[in-house]
């Protein structure tokens, strides 16, 4: 691999080739068993655990010299951690980066899935804090591995049922559990449940990396992904019932911005690229964006 000019002491995309191969093997296994959490020998990265070390390792392992990378946090390219991770790969891999969803070949994300539908030539890499959807119901790894092996997911349904009994609703608003390809219950990472339907039958490969917990899992393209629910309490997507104050979008997930100390608020798209695309900002190139689908 060629060595980037800016950081000659490190390999292309920081990780050594041996480590990348180890991660790629884990990714292949994850793709072969959709939704299954594959243990991998996660390395210490030069950013802290919790800042996206799992996603960064997955990206480093799949990144090629001709890839175009986009990094978002909370849907935005300009949040501090997204900036930091994008700069990391600019420095260590020298790859082209972009903020335009349609132009990117790899998109690393924390907490959101872009509004613009993804295509077959793209890979979405999620940063995952707690990969096991059963973890908050059962803290022991030995137990949860057994439960996954036996597809023993009753506990999760009991939890969702208790929500309904107590609140009248399923009180899980993000990191909402899904069943992948009819087999493994999977944590979609802490994306708002608004994004859950986008994972279903997605044309792009979706990879999930949890660095501290040392797990990788995947949803191959066009895989069935179902949010857990009940016949009489079907899964509900949530978005604040408003339009974006900047672009007028009625279908995008909105951030609430507090504008003064007298209770004034405005709502704007959390996906900054989607918002800018709709406003048709000058200087933008690339294909116009399709409207996000609302299943």
């Amino acid at each position, binding site marked *: 691999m060629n060595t980037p000019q800016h950081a000659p002491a*490190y390999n292309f995309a*920081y*990780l*050594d080739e*041996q480590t990348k191969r180890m991660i790629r093997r884990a990714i292949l296994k994850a793709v072969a068993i959709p939704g299954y959490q594959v*243990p*991998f*020998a*996660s*390395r*210490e*990265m*030069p950013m*802290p*655990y*919790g*800042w996206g*070390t799992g996603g960064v390792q997955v990206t480093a392992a799949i990144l090629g010299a001709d890839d175009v990378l986009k990094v978002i*946090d*909370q849907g*935005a390219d*300009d*949040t*501090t*951690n*997204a*900036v*930091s991770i994008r700069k990391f790969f600019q420095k260590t891999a020298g790859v082209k980066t972009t903020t335009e969803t349609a132009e990117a070949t790899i998109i690393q994300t*924390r*907490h*959101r899935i872009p509004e613009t539908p993804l295509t077959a030539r793209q890979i979405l890499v999620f940063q995952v*804090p707690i990969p096991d959807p059963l973890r908050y119901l059962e*803290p*022991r*790894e*030995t137990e949860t591995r057994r439960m996954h092996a036996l597809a023993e997911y009753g506990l999760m349904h009991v939890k969702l049922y208790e929500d309904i009994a107590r*609140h*009248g*609703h399923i009180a899980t*608003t*993000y990191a909402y559990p899904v069943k992948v390809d009819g087999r493994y219950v999977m944590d979609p990472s*802490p*994306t*708002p449940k*608004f994004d859950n339907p986008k994972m279903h039958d997605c044309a792009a490969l979706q990879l999930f990396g949890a660095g*501290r917990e*040392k*797990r990788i899992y995947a949803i191959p393209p066009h895989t069935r992904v179902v949010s857990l629910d009940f016949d009489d309490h079907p899964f509900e997507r*949530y978005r*604040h019932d408003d339009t974006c104050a*900047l672009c007028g979008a009625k279908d995008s*997930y909105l*951030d*609430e*911005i507090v*504008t003064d100390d007298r209770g004034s608020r*405005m709502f*704007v798209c*959390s996906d*900054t690229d989607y918002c800018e695309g709709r406003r048709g900002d000058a200087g933008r190139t690339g294909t116009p964006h399709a409207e996000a689908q609302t299943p």
Partner: protein
Amino acid sequence: MYVAVKGGERAIENAHRLLAQERRGDPSVPELSLEQIEQQLTLGVDRVMNEGSLYDRELAALAIKQARGDLIEAIFLLRAFRATLPRFGHGEPLDTGTMTVSRRISSTFKDIPGGQVLGPTFDYTHRLLEMQAEAGTAAAPAQADANLPSMPRATDLLAADDLIERSPQATGEKAVGDLTQDPLRFPAERDLRLQNLARGDEGFLLALGYSTQRGYGRNHPFAGEIRLGEVEVEFAPEEVGFAVPLGCITVTECQMVNQFRGTATEPPRFTRGYGLGFGHCERKVMAMALVDRALRARELGEETKGPAQDEEFVLSHSDNVQATGFVEHLKLPHHVDFQAELGLIRRLRTEFKEAASAVPMQEAAE
């Protein structure tokens, strides 16, 4: 208006510049040299090497300086660097029995072959701030006899009479695990547990070890021996076929001697808890030995009733680089998820109010 979520890039650069300035402090005060840190903050350097899992005093000193004295941050710097280093193989097992000892004590015997050697210890100092110490030069210590007698480990003396369990010997059948190369799985064997503890946070192990002494998984420990000194590291390259010395490192070792009443098939004999660390790190290796012994509850058929005996709990939370990362990541923006929670709370509150206003009407009807 949109400024609140923009401008990340410039903010980061400015923050880094401010950090560099704060790190340097008052420019009229001379800057710390790495030699000063390495020579005068030796125990800090030792701790960073231990939990950073890399024996390199100079890099550890650099990490401490760069981290402004925050040892966990320094440990993190060293770990991240270590992760990029190529692996040539595993060293041969250290023989601490051949250690060139600079401190060695046993609390289980009044005197032992080789004697009690106090060495450089805080143990019997009075903890009084030495206001005058700044200027003065310390008196040279007494010189010991260069020909120190051999120092068999105190636990070996017990083992000679079969009063303590044998240390497990390397059989060569099973390679020693390495949790930096393979993810830790449960249940974990003792090799991986010890590696995890050696890298584990000193404060966390100290609290866990302490908890066993206070009854949360009590195991009746005696400090069989604590020794500090230099041992040779050997490496056997495959193409050479025999072990060649790489150099000497300083280590601290603790052999804890613990009660064991025996079982139907095993005669009563003492058991061991083991601790080993880079440099001078007695607190760490003693705590490590207590926790190592506590984690053997399953193997020895003991009831597990303390957190220190709970393997998953201990091993999953001992790493301070992981712990500090996950705790501090709460500083990162979470507004997308919080927005979803706000939506739910508002909905529940609306329903709560509706229900509350509906109740009096119902009562009136009754």
